[in-house]
Every structure is written in structure tokens, then in C-alpha cells.
């Protein structure tokens, strides 16, 4: 589904250009769940931003192929229409735009891009009800402005609600677990598990093993200084929980990708 090859990206800062992604290789197939872990500042969110087309990053090398399309050539909205979704680490508040209006516009633009008719209001309301229940979002929140006045946890839940509504092929969850209480974490994870099919895939960025107890990954990758320095199965996460990152970062020669 997704192939990332030797992806390098830099940003322009006040002190000059700074390379953040230093050659990422990753392959994600339909039906898989990949976890990406790694210390603060290692480039996890940057990878998510580059994959979704946020401005400000310059890709200097490498390529990203998503279902045979060169993803880096597409606009952010077209990537979303192709089926890529990012649950943001820090969702923004948008005063004046209601969740309903926002989602209705999004769904209908995605449908339009596929040559489909707009969704009827009845179907839309049905879908909202169903998906709100799935992720345990208070339906009251849906009529409110996007994320305005939402608690940290509510914002995260709202991201997963949007994911459920848009039904993407590839979902990137950037630290969705941070800010969620234990019960919320379980509901959200259950929601994700229910959304899982053999045709979609998830990249789960997290610092904690806890989330991976619920959303069990097929692969775990460690990102360090803009590169994936280690990959393994779910046991790698357990090992990291116990030993931290030192054992990897101190001995970079031990890297196997």
C-alpha cells in the first residue's frame, strides 16, 4: 500500500536549513499495523507531516508511493481523497466551523473526487450516530465548533471520530494515546480495532507500550535522529518499555533494518 524509499526532508528555520528526516525506508501493506516509537524530536511527527503534505518541509531525496501513485506530487486534500488520514498530535481549534459542517464538507468532497453523489442528510446523521458511538464521543460535541473548548482527551477522541467518519485506507495516529485517560484509551483503541479490515492499514506513533496492548502492531520501528534505526515485532516495544532507547542509540552499528 505504502512504500517509503530513502526519504529525506528538511525545513527552513531562522538559523538556516535543518535536515530532519535523514533517509527513511518503510513499507506498509494492507491489513498491517505498524508502530513507530522513538525519543522526542526524532522526527516522527515530521514524517507524518511530510506524508500528509504539510507546507514548510522540503523533500530533498527519496520517494513515497501510495497505491502506485507518487504521493509527494499530490496536494494535501488529494492525499486525503486517496485515503490517507492523520490523527494529529495537536489538533487545532477552528472557531466558527461546526464539526458537522466540517465533516459533511469533507465527506462530500471525498465522494465528489470519486465521482459519487453527495451523501444525503439522513445517511450523514445515521453515520454520525453510529461512529460517535463507536469511539465513545458525546454526540453533543458534534454540533460544537471543531475542537473549540474540547479537553485534550476530547480532541484526541474527535480525531478518531473523524477517522471513523472518513474511513481512510491508511491512518496515521500521532500520539493519539497521550492525553487520554485509561478508559478513554480503551474505548478509542477498541474503536480502532473495529475499524480494522484486511484492506486498510495503520501507522501508530506512540511513546508507550500501553496503547500497543490494545492495538497490537505487526511491526514496531524505532526512529532516531531522522532514521528508522531498528525494526522488529511487538516484542521490540516491550523491550523498549523496559530498557529505554539507550541500548539502540549508543550502539548504532547494531542497527538492523
Amino acid at each position, binding site marked *: 500500500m505504502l512504500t517509503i524509499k530513502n526519504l529525506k526532508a528538511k525545513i527552513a528555520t531562522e538559523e538556516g536549513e535543518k535536515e530532519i528526516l535523514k533517509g527513511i525506508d518503510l513499507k506498509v501493506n494492507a491489513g498491517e499495523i505498524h508502530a513507530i516509537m522513538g525519543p522526542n524530536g526524532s522526527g516522527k511527527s515530521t514524517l507524518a507531516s511530510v506524508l500528509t503534505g504539510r*507546507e514548510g518541509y522540503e523533500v530533498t531525496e527519496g520517494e513515497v508511493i501510495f497505491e502506485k501513485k507518487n504521493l509527494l506530487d499530490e*496536494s494535501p*486534500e488529494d492525499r486525503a481523497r486517496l485515503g490517507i488520514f492523520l490523527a*494529529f498530535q495537536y489538533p*487545532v481549534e477552528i*472557531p466558527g*466551523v461546526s464539526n458537522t459542517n466540517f465533516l459533511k464538507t469533507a465527506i462530500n*468532497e471525498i465522494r465528489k473526487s470519486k465521482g459519487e453523489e453527495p451523501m444525503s442528510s439522513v445517511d450523514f446523521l445515521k453515520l454520525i450516530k453510529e461512529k460517535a458511538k463507536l469511539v465513545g464521543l458525546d454526540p453533543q460535541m458534534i454540533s460544537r465548533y*471543531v475542537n473549540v473548548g474540547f479537553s485534550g482527551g476530547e480532541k484526541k477522541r474527535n480525531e478518531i471520530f473523524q477517522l471513523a467518519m*472518513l474511513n481512510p485506507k491508511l491512518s496515521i495516529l500521532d500520539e493519539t494515546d497521550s492525553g487520554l485517560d485509561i478508559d478513554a484509551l480503551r474505548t478509542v483503541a477498541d474503536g480502532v480495532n473495529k475499524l480494522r479490515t484486511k484492506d486498510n492499514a495503520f501507522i501508530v506513533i506512540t511513546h508507550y507500550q500501553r496503547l500497543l496492548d490494545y492495538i497490537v502492531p505487526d511491526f514496531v520501528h524505532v526512529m532516531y535522529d531522522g532514521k528508522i534505526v531498528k525494526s522488529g515485532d511487538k516484542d521490540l516495544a516491550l523491550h523498549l518499555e523496559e530498557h529505554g532507547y539507550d541500548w539502540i542509540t549508543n550502539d548504532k552499528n547494531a542497527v538492523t533494518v
Partner: protein
Amino acid sequence: MNNEETEKTDLKAKLLNNFRDFEKNLNGDAAGIIHEKRKDAIKYFETLGFPVKKLEEWKYTNLTPALKHTFKNPLEEYTSALSENDIKDFLIKKENVNLLVFVNGQFERKLSKICSKNDNVFIGSFSDGMKTHRDIIESHFSKYVNYTNSGLTALNTAFAGEGCFVYAGKGEQISEPVHILCISDAREEVYFSQLRNLIVAEDNSSVNIAEDYYTIGDKHSFTNTVTEIFCEKNSGVEHYKIQNEGPNAYYTGTTQVHQEKDSRYSDTTISWGGAIIRNDLNSVFEGTNTECHFYGLYLLSGKQHVDNHTFADHKSPNCYSNELYKGILDDNSTGVFNGKIMVRPDAQKTNAYQSNNNILISDDSTIYSKPQLEIFADDVKCSHGATSGQLNEDEMFYLQSRGIGRENARTLLLYAYASDVIDSIKFGELKEMIEIKLEKKLKKGD
């Protein structure tokens, strides 16, 4: 091209001539308080003339392009040829509305419809009001607005004679809104219209008024209005001014509000049509515990120029004023916002808030925003803020990342940005009409 000064003088000289003709045709009306004021005002117009950029209050607004044209005075020879069909798109979709139609400043009786009528209420034209409510008009006319320091107000006062007159007697809550449709008929000729409105809300009364400006045809037009609003004790006036004029329309106008104890006044001014627009909105708090809201939205494109000058004059203690003006500027458009708050020495316990926000969509658009706070009392709460910037890119990206294209994302965000001004419109059917137009206008531009 001719010399600007000559042209200006031409229009002024023409207007001074017009005044003599106007006087001759007044007949019985030439005797009385109102005509005394007219005669006095024309002298001021003769001295002051049209405002020039040298004046501090006109620093950013240049009327010269408007003064170049050889405008006709509708008083000379004018009969409107507009039919109901011509104005049907301008009507507010509500059954019980008092509709007053003015075409080039002249009252169109056959297109108008008045539904609120009783001994204690008058809604109609200024000239009709003079027949039945002369005493009331004379006791308020030109009492609040000052023509000795404004050439445009002097000009309007000199030609005062037509416009709308609304009278809500003591205790009258007029539930049917007043829709004043002011149309510039610019299909054949270029006209310079003067419109003079007077709103009198007596003790404990209330009324809602929407001034709505449109142009038909694409010749030039110039409308200069003065609206005086008298809010007696504990009265409430909701006022809307919607400027939908065409790309060759010039507009200048002053709204002067006089607020007595416990009164409430609220104005929402929406400006999105017209070549040059200058609005002056002044409210003087003559009594304690009054409340005043000024809301404004200007959505500009092309070479449009809109100048909003507002003035909340806190003369009495315990009054509240709140102001929110928002601008969206595209292409080569220019916005001017000058918000003055004066807290006079007696006005203790004043609460006065003001904010002006601007989104500059294009690099070539310009905003001049100036708060002007003059505070002479010590126990006051005042705040003001002005911002100008671009659309928030994080918000844009969030919407795009959900599949919403840049165009639609922009429309959603700008619509949301304007919504707190739109929400100040309590007249539901008018609000709906504005919402539909706003969305259309946002979608069209890019």
C-alpha cells in the same frame, strides 16, 4: 483630463445652484424651522465644500474620483421607472415587514408597503411625516447631527426633505421590522441623491430598522445620507445597514445616535458593494446605564475602498459600549477603520470595548486601522485591539488534510471568521439573506 479643482468646484457650484431651484419649488414648506436649518446648512456647505484628504478625518479616503462626474440632482426632474419586478430580488422574505422604497432619494409610494400603523406609530417617508407629525420632526430634526464641521452633512441638511421617518411613541414595541430599500437607478443617468432619515423612539419603545442599499444599472451614482436616531429612556433600536451597491456607486453617510438613560442601540453595518464607501457612526450617551453595540463587516475586492469611522461618546456614567469590526480584503482593496471612544470626566464606571480584525487575502490589499481612545475619567474599563493577518495556515491544513480543497477550506474559514458579526443580526430573515450572500461572495472570489 481636466483639473481636479475645477471639477470639484463645478459640482459644488452646481449644487449651490440646485439649492436655489429647490428653494423656489418648496412653496409653503419654505417657512418653518426646517427650512431655517437648510438655509444655514447651505452656507456651511458653501464654506466647507467636500472633504479633502488634508483633513485628519479624511486622511485615507479620497473622494475626488466621485466628484469628477456631472451628477444630476434627482430633484431637477425625476420620475422612477422601476417596477415591482425590478426590486423583487432585494426584498426580505418575511410577511410582515414595513417596506419603504427610495429610488435616487425619492420616495416610491407604489413600491412601498406599510403594515405597522396606529395613532402612536408612524412609519413612512419624511415628506409624509411632515404632513402628520410636523411637531415631532421639527423638535428632533438636525438636533443631534452637527453640520457645522462636515460639508457632507451640511449638504445633506440643505437638501433635507426626503428619506424615512419612523416614530415609535411611548411604550410602542413595533414587532414588524422596517426595511428601507435605497436604490440608485443608474441605468440612464448619473444621480447624486441626498437621503435624510429620522428615527424617534420614545420612552420604553422599540423598533428594528434595516437600511439596504442597491444599484440598478452600471452608470455612476452618489448617495449621501444622514440618519438621526433618538433613543429616549429605556428604548431599544436595532439598526442594520447593508451596502450592496454596484462597482460604480459612491456612498457617504452619517448615522448620529442620541441615547438617553437605559436605552439600547445596536448597529450592524455590512459593506460589500460600492466603489467608495464612507460610513460615520456616532452615538452619544446622554443618560446613564445605556448600552451600545457597533458591529461591522467589510468584504472587499477589486479596487473597493471602505472607510468606517465610529465614535462612542461616553458622556454619562455607567454606560456600556462594545464594538467589533471585521474585514476581509482581497485584490487591491483598501479598508479604513477609525474607532474613537471618548470617556468624558463624568463618565465613571464606563465599560468600553473595541476590536478590529482584518484578514488580508491578497498582498495588494491595505488596511489602515486606528483606535482612538480618549479617557478623562478614572474608574473605567476600556480595551481595544486591532489585528491584521492572513488566513491561519494550520487551520487551512487541518481542513485540507480531511479532503477539503483549498477553495472550500478558505470559504469555511472566512465564513466562520465573519460569523460573530453576522450573529449580531437578530432579524432572522435578514440574517439568512446575508448568510446566503456571504457564502456566495466568498465562493466567487479567489
